[in-house]
């Protein structure tokens, strides 16, 4: 029987770390507050750049970690530091003594209603990226189902790179997500005009640029550079977007049937509490603080406490998975060094 390892969070980072730790011969304990594994990815439909079904990714990972101790609908109640490790109490009453804790607590989607000027929760035809994925998965959303959708807009950077929204960080994945969703919508509504309102397009990842070119050349998505200033609603229930086309230098007003807000990534609020139990502070960007941000991004100043995934900032799924593998190795090395 090897040492206990507690993984907080059953998203991609937690699952991949658990998978690697199982391969290394450990039997990690994974706690997840919701009733299913997979985190935010489980709510998604298809993943860029190859349109891999998100469910498939989650299913594969779940399959491979079935030997781990997994507690669903369970949270960390408190953590006590002990001489040789930590005593972790879960909300289901289980008490564990472990040597290493991995905080794979992920992110919260920015609450789009906080940007009141975009009218989420006020106007009928405004939704978020997550709502749209939900519709892709279920086909059930009164904003789209049965509606005659002729014009669709995507607003980039909602709650990202926005000091007034309290988050100055780039959420990294929304540019490509918006392009992906724009193309998917174009497929479903071939006659519709699709607009993306962006301030920059940050297409850094594998095949992202191809996606962008394809969106313009094949799908005919219109890209308008300029931040949306305000959104209003007309008597027909359509939304009117006011923006500036900064490339032509003209103000623009576009009436749309559907507006999708690309809500950004902010630090998981509950994770902040859990992290404080093991003295992991918050960095100036609002995410959990690593030992340093070059080589030790998965380690903390608290002994035996590790980080992986979006707990330390916005990341793509491949980045998260890579970090999870790295953290598994780091935990292994740590435990070996402790013997």
């Amino acid at each position, binding site marked *: 029987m090897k040492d206990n390892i507690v993984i907080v969070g059953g998203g991609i980072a937690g699952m991949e770390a658990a998978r690697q730790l199982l391969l290394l011969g450990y039997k990690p304990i994974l706690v997840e507050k919701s009733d299913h594994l997979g985190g935010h990815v489980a709510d998604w439909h298809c993943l860029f750049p190859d349109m891999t079904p998100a469910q498939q990714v989650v299913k594969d990972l779940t399959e491979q970690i079935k030997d781990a101790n997994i507690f669903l609908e369970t949270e960390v109640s408190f953590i006590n530091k002990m001489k040789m490790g930590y005593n972790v109490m879960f909300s289901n009453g289980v008490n564990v003594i472990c040597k290493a804790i991995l905080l794979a607590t992920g992110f919260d989607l920015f609450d789009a209603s*906080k940007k*009141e*000027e975009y*009218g989420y929760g*006020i*106007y009928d035809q405004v939704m978020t990226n997550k709502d749209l994925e939900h519709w892709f998965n279920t086909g059930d959303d009164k904003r789209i189902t049965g509606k005659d959708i002729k014009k669709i807009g995507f607003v980039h950077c909602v709650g990202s790179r926005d*000091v*007034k*929204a*309290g988050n100055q960080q780039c959420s990294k994945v929304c540019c490509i997500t918006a392009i992906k969703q724009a193309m998917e919508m174009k497929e479903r509504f071939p006659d519709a005009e699709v607009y993306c309102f962006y301030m920059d397009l940050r297409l850094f990842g594998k095949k992202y640029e191809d996606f962008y070119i394809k969106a313009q050349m094949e799908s005919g998505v219109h890209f308008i550079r300029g931040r949306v*200033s*305000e*959104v*209003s*609603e*007309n008597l027909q229930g359509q939304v*009117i977007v*006011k923006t500036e086309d900064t490339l032509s230098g003209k103000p623009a*007003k576009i009436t749309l049937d559907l507006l999708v807000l690309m809500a950004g990534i902010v630090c998981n609020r509950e994770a902040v509490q859990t992290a404080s139990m093991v003295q992991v502070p918050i960095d100036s960007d609002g995410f959990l603080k690593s030992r340093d941000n070059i080589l030790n991004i998965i380690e903390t100043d608290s002994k035996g406490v590790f980080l992986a995934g979006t707990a330390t900032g916005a990341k793509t799924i491949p980045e998260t998975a890579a970090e999870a593998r790295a953290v598994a190795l780091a935990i292994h090395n740590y435990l070996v060094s402790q013997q």
Partner: protein
Amino acid sequence: MIDRFASGFDPFVIPFLIGMIFVLGYCIIGAIRLILQLDAEDKKKFFLSLITPKTIWKNIKDLFLNCLIHVKLWKRNKLLGYMHSSIAFGWFMLILLGHIECFVYMPHRVKLFYYPIFFNYFVAENEYTLRGAIFFFLMDFFLLVVLSGIVLAIIKRVRSRLFGMRRTTRPTLLDRVGLYSLWMIFPLRLLAESFTAHISGGSFLTIPMNMMFKAFLGDQMNMLPTWWAYSICLCIFMCVLPFTRYMHIPAEMLLIPFRNAGLTIKHARRGFAKAQVYSCPNCGVCIDACPMSIKKANIKDTTVYLNRNIRRRNEQRIEEISDKCLLCGKCTAVCQVGVDGPQMRIAQRSIRNYGLDQDYSGMDISAIKESVASEPSKDKVLYFAGCMTQLTPAISRAMESIFRKAGVDYAFMDKDGGLCCGRPILMAGRFDQARQLIHKNKEVIKASGAGTLVLSCPICYKIFREHYKLEGIRVMHHTEYMLELVRAGRLKLDGGAGSIVYHDPCELGRGCGIYEQPREVLRQTGELVEAEANRDMAICCGGSLGSLTLGFDKREDLTRNALHNLTVNDPDTIVTACPLCKSTFARYADKPVEDIAETVDKHTK
């Protein structure tokens, strides 16, 4: 009482005379200059006010209550109030009684300028009368009052917190000279009068001291030197007065009649503005009041430093201080002399040279005009949301819903785009541009034929109320209008909103004096609780458009401080009546923040 000296003169009065003539000359010339600096309209207003019985009475009352009794200070802190009124009122009574004494006993000496001041030196008491005893008693009594004030003033220098002041300004070198000479005047007067008390007579203070000195010193060699010292101290104080904070004493005597005449600041540095600058006593009450001074930041950007730098003609600092201010007006609310911090700053901004002058006079408003145009009707309401409400659409939605519920015939002036009300650009000191916008909006309002204009933004409301001059059209903030609907029974509230704290927006509260209307509406909507500082003492949310330079990152502390003030009574909901306050608070609040229109709309039966 008889004259001790046939000449009625002694050389020691010369320093006093020099000081007195200097300060009087300076103040009279200064006052004439300030009056001449007023424009023709203001001059007329001012001179008319001097012969209107109502304003004459108000001037006398205000001069007495503010300059002598310092009622505003009493309201702030009893010790601080006593300190100031004991010195000011006590000194005033000493001068007044001295003159009455002179009139009663030495009428032939009244023409001598200095005689009443040094009365006790020049007279000898030849008979004891009740009248004399009363005079002497009063003189000693008021001297004691002043001395008690001086003692407090000295204590205040060391422990200003006892007087309810956390932070204050550092006195300049000349201020210190003035201060110390002021402190010295009264103890020296006591000494001088005590040394002469066996000749001139005295009362409970001076007679025993005279006896004590005689017992200890045995001779009267100290008499003349102390009178000299007393006179020199008076001279020093009066000679430095125009260059110190004590200039506020004469300046306020001009500021009060100016203000009562209804003058406004027309020029950044002349006339009324200058009277305000010189009336600033540099007390620094505005430092603690300023919302920007939280966490010891921006202390040197408060109104007292604006006045200081205007006096020093430090243009760079004037510009920085004027531009940074949020124009919340709290400094004015706490100011003892009523220096109008926001207006002073707007005036400074207005004399700036900008590289570019926008012109809005050519803007096409025909589409907006068309969308609201209708036959004139008293009952028709025109609703103007303004830019800030456009960014908080929940408010305009709630307003429309309220209009529908109450069966109001309304038009939405800027439903599909509109012009700015002009207030932000007015705040930036660009009056011509503001006028152009006002002119354009007026055309739209006139075309609508509405009898009432309703605004949900206090920033708009203030300019519509003060600068639009919409004859025959009622300009109402939505809090006022909702109250009217509730009172008329057109809107029925269910009272189920739980506990609510109401935040007074600066532009609505201190800016327009509307405090009670929203509270009356909210009392029927839920259980109204109050913030720690409220009404005219409310704390700016930090989102104000007034500041041209205060960075967004610097504002978070302000907002959090204001939120802390609002939530001391742990309300369920924070309600305000300004879209800008709403969005600013919502950013950091851990409780729901609503506009009063949303609260009312949700809780209408």
